C-alpha cells in the first residue's frame, strides 16, 4: 500500500503551478552567510515544492537543455562552468541556494535568470540539479540516463568514497 501511495506521488503532474505554492522564496540564502572558500551552511529554510516529483525532475532536465545550462555545465560534469555533480558548492548546495544562484547569477559567467524565466521552471531545474547528486528519492529519478554516462548515483558514491 505504501508502495502504491508513493507511486501516485511520483507521477503527480502539477501542470498548472499555483502561484501560492511558489511564493515561498524569501530571503533564504543571504550572501553574507556564505563564506567564500569555507564550509557553506546557510539556513536551508525553503524547501523545493518539486522535491520528489518525477514529472518535475524530468521537466527540469528538459529545461536544463532548453535554456542551455548544458552549454557551460555540460551534463553535470562541468567544463566552461563548474561541475554540478559535487559535494562542495561555492554558493551553497541547498535548494534555496541553487534557486538564488539561478535567479541572481554569479560572477564569472553565470547569467541571472530571475525575471527571465518563470519561477516554477527555476524550481524544476533546481530539482533536476539536485537529482544529479542523488539528492532526490531514488523512486523519482530514472535508473539510467538518456545519454551514455554513468548513473549519477554511481559518481556520487565514488566521490563520497562509497563502493557498492
Amino acid at each position, binding site marked *: 500500500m505504501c508502495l502504491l501511495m508513493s507511486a501516485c506521488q511520483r507521477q503527480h*503532474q502539477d*501542470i*498548472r*503551478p499555483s502561484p501560492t505554492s511558489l511564493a515561498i522564496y524569501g530571503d533564504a540564502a543571504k550572501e553574507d552567510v556564505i563564506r567564500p572558500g569555507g564550509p557553506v551552511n546557510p539556513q536551508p529554510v525553503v524547501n523545493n515544492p518539486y522535491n520528489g516529483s518525477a514529472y518535475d525532475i524530468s521537466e527540469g532536465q*528538459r529545461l536544463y537543455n*532548453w*535554456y542551455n545550462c548544458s552549454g557551460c555545465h555540460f551534463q553535470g560534469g562541468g567544463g566552461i562552468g563548474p561541475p554540478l555533480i559535487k559535494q562542495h558548492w561555492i554558493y551553497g548546495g541547498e535548494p534555496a541556494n541553487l534557486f538564488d544562484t539561478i535567479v541572481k547569477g554569479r560572477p564569472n559567467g553565470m547569467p541571472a535568470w530571475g525575471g*527571465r*524565466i*518563470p519561477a516554477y521552471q527555476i524550481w524544476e531545474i533546481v530539482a533536476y540539479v539536485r537529482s544529479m547528486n542523488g539528492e532526490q528519492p531514488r523512486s523519482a529519478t530514472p535508473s539510467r540516463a538518456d545519454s551514455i554516462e554513468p548513473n549519477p548515483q554511481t559518481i556520487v558514491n565514488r566521490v563520497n568514497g562509497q563502493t557498492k
Partner: protein
Amino acid sequence: MMQRAKWARAFAIASSLVLTSCIYNRQSAVDPAGPQAGRVDTLWWSFFWLLGAIFLIVMILTVMTLGRRHRGFEQEPLAIRHKASDETESQLRRVVTGATIATIVILFVLIVASVGTGKANSELQQKKNPLTIQVTGTQWWWQIQYMNSDPTQNLTTANEIHIPVGRPVQIRGASNDVIHSFWVPNLNGKRDLIPSRITSEWIEADHPGEFRGQCAEFCGLQHAHMAIWVIAEPQAQFDAWMKAQLQPAAAPQTPAQIRGQQVFLNNACMYCHAIQGTPAVGQNGPDLTHFGSRRGIAANTVPNTMGNLAGWILDPQSMKPGNHMATVEVSSTDLQPLVEYLESLK
C-alpha cells in the same frame, strides 16, 4: 434488451463515422488528392469489394444451412460408425478443395496488390525535380523545414506545409523526442517519425486544396492536439508564398506593436521562439517569424485569432494541458501589445 441497446449504439457510432467522413473530406483517405493516396484508395476499395463479396457469400451459405431440411424425429438416428456414400464423399471433397484453392488464390492476389501498392508508393522511387521538406515531430507540434542546396532558400516554419500542385514532395521525417507519425490521409499513408533516424515518404497533390493531417502514433498527453495542414496551391501562388516566408519578420509599425516586440524580447518568449530579424533565436518552440500568416495556433488546436492567442499566452495549460509552453506572467497592459505584434507578423 441490453443486446439491442448495444447494437443501437454501435450502429449510431458507425453511421456518425460514415457521415463525418462524407462531410469532412479534408482529412479522408477515401478522397485522394494525389497519385500516392489514389493507389491507397484503389487498394482499399478493391479489398473492400472483394472481401465484402466473400463475406456476403459466406453469410448466405450460413443462412442456407440453417434452413436446410434436417433429419426429423421420426427417422432413426445415424449409426455411430456412419459412413457417407461415395457420392456424398466425392462432393464434399470437391467443395473443400475448391474453397481452399479459391482462398489461396484470393490471398495471393491481395498480397500482390498490397505489395504492388507499397512498391509504387515507396520512398525509394526517384522523382524528377523534387521538393524536399523535413518534418520534425516534437511534443506536440510539427517543425517544418524546406531544404534547399542554396542555404538562403532554407525556410523554417511550423504546423503548416505549402506545396505546389503537381510537383513531387519528399517528406523527410525526424523526431526530437518520441515516435510520432506523419499522416495526411488525402495525400499518402502514415510514416513514423523516429528519434535519431530519418524516414521518408513521397506526397504529391494533383489539385489545389487544403488537407488536414494528424499525428498517428500516440506520443503523450497532447497527441490528439497535434494537427498539421498541407496546403496545395498552383506553382505561382506557392512561389509567392515562399518568397514572403523567406523575408525576415515585418518590423513593428504602430506604438502597440513596438511595445509588443519589447515585451516579447524581455520575457521568456525569446528563449524558446525565434523571430528572424530580431535577437530572438530560440529553437525549442515553433518559429514565429511569419506567425500571423498561419491558420492555427498550438499545432492547429484553435484558429489563429487575437482572442485565442491571448488566451493561449495567458494560460497555455488550459487549452493543451501538459504542453511544454511556459506559463509566462504577462501583465494585462502588455498582453494586448504582444498579441498585436505577433499577429502583425504576416
